[in-house]
């Protein structure tokens, strides 16, 4: 008998949560060991997700019924090809946690170390749970676990300013979660079930259209806020710029993607039920995405604060993903799915490199950081590789997905969106060129920048590893595209655009 792989599924959630619960206990005895402990927990989770992805590649989607209560009665965990993004997600945590060691020691008092790592593990567990649950209400709960830990993480480093940014994030995030709960409640009232597959099966033509549309709109709005798509992005820049850099990497690279995963789940649900006019919805998504790309890039051009610039660039990149799904073409959907992962990688690279620069020099604006490449050549090189990747130049990780999304735009006979995409890329190119120019080709204005030393190896090794991954994923990018391809039919509207 073969190994029962689906038995691994609950461990992917349980490991980080139990690890997080034990972290404060450890912190009370020896705060120094909380970092290595958190890393151990993350590595164990990586091992579990490797097993899960290997199984889904071989045998297709599989489920696990918690406590043996199957289907409509119990809570079901479900692992499909979209959920496979939990592997790169936990791998990125395995890089971010060691990077944080030195950062945390310098910028937080020892009493907060335990809380910091516990919250990081909770964010990871929440996102993994969110991605693998097959239950609507469970989706809400895991979203709240992720969001609540994120609010706290934004505030963990600073005092008043950080708390104010975190509270703005909390108010919008809480309303978004509430809308998701409202949509869940409406669907439960209409169908009497919370299981995603079961709800889809019960949303027949005899169910009242009005409430179904309200539920759909509430869920979609909620996830668009979480994903920070343009008009709903107002909470993002402050929260992502003020948080400690490893946290910015987690928030900007990974947490906004819960919104995307949520969108995918909702579209899968309503796709199966064929209950709402998905073609019109996809067109709206494409427009939102296009506007997001251009506006995010436009706003980023005017930023002098390095991390604020990166935060606005996240809005553009989420725009690419949303546009990719909205184009309703197989190529574009494949590109968008992979960009979820690649953008996470690139944005983590950029935020950690920015964190390293800020950590060593004490400055955070481009005008202050001029000429830092002479003192910190390796970190600046990582920053430059990240910039080239996010603009989407070959041969880096950003190129392939954007190329696929553009291909999809022409495939779907919607060339204007393809032009919006290229136009947005030009904008993005402009401000990243400005950044590279400031770091490399301008004379330092501060003595501290000229005399800065390279970051210690515990921070440098993660940076170099991430930069190398940006290049490797650009050169060997076909595998993730091929992996996700069989799954995208489930998020395209029935009968084409």
């Amino acid at each position, binding site marked *: 008998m073969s190994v029962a792989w689906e038995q691994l599924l609950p461990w992917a959630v349980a490991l980080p949560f139990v690890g997080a619960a034990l972290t404060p206990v450890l912190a009370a005895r020896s705060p120094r060991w909380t970092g290595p402990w958190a890393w151990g927990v993350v590595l164990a989770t990586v091992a579990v997700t490797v097993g899960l992805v290997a199984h889904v590649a071989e045998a297709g989607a599989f489920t696990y019924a918690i406590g043996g209560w199957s289907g409509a009665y119990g809570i079901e965990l479900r692992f499909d090809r979209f959920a496979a993004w939990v592997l790169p997600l936990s791998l990125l945590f395995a890089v971010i946690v060691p990077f944080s060691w030195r950062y945390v020691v310098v910028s937080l008092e020892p009493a907060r170390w335990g809380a910091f790592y516990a919250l990081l593990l909770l964010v990871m567990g929440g996102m993994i749970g969110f991605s693998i649950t097959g239950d609507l*209400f469970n989706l*809400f*709960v895991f979203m*709240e676990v992720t969001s*609540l830990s994120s*609010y*706290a993480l934004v*505030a963990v480093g600073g*005092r*008043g*300013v950080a*708390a*104010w940014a*975190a*509270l703005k994030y*909390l*108010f919008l995030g*809480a*309303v978004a*979660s*509430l809308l998701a*709960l*409202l949509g869940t*409640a409406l669907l*439960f*009232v209409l169908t*009497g079930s*919370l299981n995603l597959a079961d709800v889809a099966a019960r949303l027949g033509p005899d169910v009242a259209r009005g409430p179904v549309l309200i539920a759909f709109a509430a869920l979609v709005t909620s996830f668009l806020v979480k994903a920070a798509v343009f008009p709903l992005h107002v909470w993002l820049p402050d929260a992502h710029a003020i948080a400690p850099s490893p946290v910015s990497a987690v928030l900007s690279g990974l947490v906004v993607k819960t919104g995307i995963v949520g969108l995918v789940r909702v579209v899968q649900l309503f796709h199966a039920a064929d209950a709402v006019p998905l073609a019109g919805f996809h067109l709206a998504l494409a427009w939102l995405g296009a506007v997001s790309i251009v506006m995010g890039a436009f706003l980023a051009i005017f930023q002098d604060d390095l991390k604020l610039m990166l935060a606005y660039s996240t809005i553009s990149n989420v725009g690419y993903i949303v546009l990719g799904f909205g184009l309703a073409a197989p190529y574009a959907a494949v590109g968008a799915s992979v960009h979820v992962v690649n953008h996470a990688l690139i944005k983590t690279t950029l935020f950690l490199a920015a964190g390293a620069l800020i950590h060593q020099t004490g400055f955070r604006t481009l005008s202050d950081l001029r000429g830092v490449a002479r003192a910190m050549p390796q970190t600046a090189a990582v920053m430059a590789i990240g910039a080239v990747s996010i603009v989407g130049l070959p041969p880096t990780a950003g190129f392939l997905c954007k190329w696929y999304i553009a291909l999809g735009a022409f495939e779907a006979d919607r060339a204007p969106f393809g032009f919006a995409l290229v136009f947005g890329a030009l904008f993005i190119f402009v401000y990243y060129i400005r950044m590279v120019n400031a770091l490399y080709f301008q004379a330092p204005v501060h003595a501290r920048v000229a005399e800065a030393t390279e970051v210690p190896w515990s921070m440098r090794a993660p940076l170099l590893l991430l930069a190398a991954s940006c290049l490797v994923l650009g050169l060997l990018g076909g595998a993730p595209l091929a992996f996700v391809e069989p799954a995208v039919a489930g998020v395209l509207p029935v009968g084409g655009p």
Partner: protein
Amino acid sequence: MAPFGVDLDYVAVAALFCIGLYMLVAKSNLLKKLLGLNVMETSVFAFIVTSGMVEGGDPPLLVAGAQPPFASPIPQAMVLTGIVVVVSVTAVALSLIVQIYAHYGTLEVDELKERP
């Protein structure tokens, strides 16, 4: 009870939701905003709980003489979980508000916006 063809509880839920939203958007004091958020959340919980009601239904307990139809127990389990979530959100928000007050000395949004 369904005057004008709409159940009264749905009217109450919609009214509570709008009152909470108004407080959250229009009030300038952070504590009042938080209260508005709580009112909104309560309205959604009320909606979920009332959906479990079955006309003439018994409590869903397996005791001697229990007769179907039973009221649905799932909404209550959902709302319990939801309350736990909302209490945590409120606790985090309150602790952030305490920090904001300690740093800025005010809870009014229009004054907070003017400070760096």
